[in-house]
């Protein structure tokens, strides 16, 4: 019995060191779950089954669920488009200019791209607060320029501005939160 307990303790130290040095978030979550499972085994070996039950239920089932949920929220880049031409077209042979740009951008940060078409301009007011949109795309018909509107507080916008530096037809606009632009 003592050998098993010592083995588990050594494993716990190894897992905690690998948590510190790991770079992938989901992998860290799996490590955390296994950490609490092993510590629950240790509690059980030291005759504390009540604490072990609580540790298994909370530490290795509910907390990883919370972590995975919040990580998956960070992985999304949500774009709302108010444009109804070929700019954001995504088909097998031909991709629009804007779609290529956004794809390039999200591949750089390993994000998942979601585009919603909302050509009727349903409600722009307070849209950042209400539905977590990261970027809004609009078009000025007279000058044929596209506006990419995003939050000022987001660091990702700087990279996007860098990408479109040489393009005259695309302009990145940074807006403060809860501020509207018409």
């Amino acid at each position: 019995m003592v050998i098993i307990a010592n083995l588990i303790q050594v494993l716990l130290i190894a897992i905690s060191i690998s948590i510190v040095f790991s770079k992938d978030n989901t992998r860290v979550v799996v490590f955390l779950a296994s950490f609490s499972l092993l510590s629950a085994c240790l509690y059980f070996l030291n005759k504390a089954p009540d604490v072990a039950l609580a540790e298994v239920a909370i530490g290795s089932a509910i907390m990883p669920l919370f972590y995975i949920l919040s990580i998956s929220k960070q992985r999304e880049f949500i774009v709302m488009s108010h444009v109804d031409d070929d700019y954001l077209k995504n088909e097998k042979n031909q991709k629009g200019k804007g779609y290529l740009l956004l794809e390039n951008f999200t591949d750089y940060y390993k994000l998942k791209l979601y585009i919603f078409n909302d050509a009727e301009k349903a409600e722009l007011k307070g849209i950042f607060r209400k539905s977590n949109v990261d970027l809004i795309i609009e078009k000025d018909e007279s000058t044929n320029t596209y506006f990419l509107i995003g939050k000022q507080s987001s660091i990702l916008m700087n990279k996007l501005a860098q990408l479109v530096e040489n393009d005259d037809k695309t302009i990145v606009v940074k807006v403060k939160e809860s501020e509207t632009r018409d």
Partner: protein
Amino acid sequence: MIKKISLLIILFIMLILFIQMQFDLKGYLNYFSHEYFLSHTYKDTASSNIVTGIYLDYRLFDSIFEASILLIVVSGIVYMTTKEGEENERVFIFEKVKISNLLTILSRVLYPFMLMFGVYIIIHGHLSPGGGFQGGAILATAVLITYYIDPDKITKFSLIIFLEKLLFISILIISSLSLLTKNVLFTNFIPNQTSNTYRSIFLILLNLLIGIKVSLGLVSIFSSFLKEGRS
């Protein structure tokens, strides 16, 4: 790199401190309470599980504050994540991301067994390891599995929070009923002369209430995390 190395150094110092603490504690070690609880718990509280006997009879006052902490945390999280103003009914496409069939069917099979195990842990809290908090956490995982079956299952937050408040108040009332029968607050309200089988009704009742309250709290935390920013 510097951050990680400093973190490792902190962990190493903690390890040394823990080992040092083991030697320091040996001077203070005694077994008075150990022997007292082993010999008196079953007679005093009618609970075979000493841990349950302590947290539902000797230290019931502490358990009430533990329950209230969870209630305060849940109401704080729900207050911060719900938005003021009118509800926006727009549903985005990514809410309906496909979940694999295998996961759905497996969770359908597992769901009743998990519920049964949680209720068993709660009701047998005074006989075997477990109790209200542990069983409530298992019940909460069982309910969270239903999100794989149907994401729009739980919608009424206000009802959940209201139920939780109601359960907390009923825990308070039941634990202070002993003022009428025994003239002492926060202990078993059934007189000591009755048999142990009847006295354990109090333990089962409180365990059940605490378990339901904990599971409702964890479910409401999870669903407010899920709904945050996409209503």
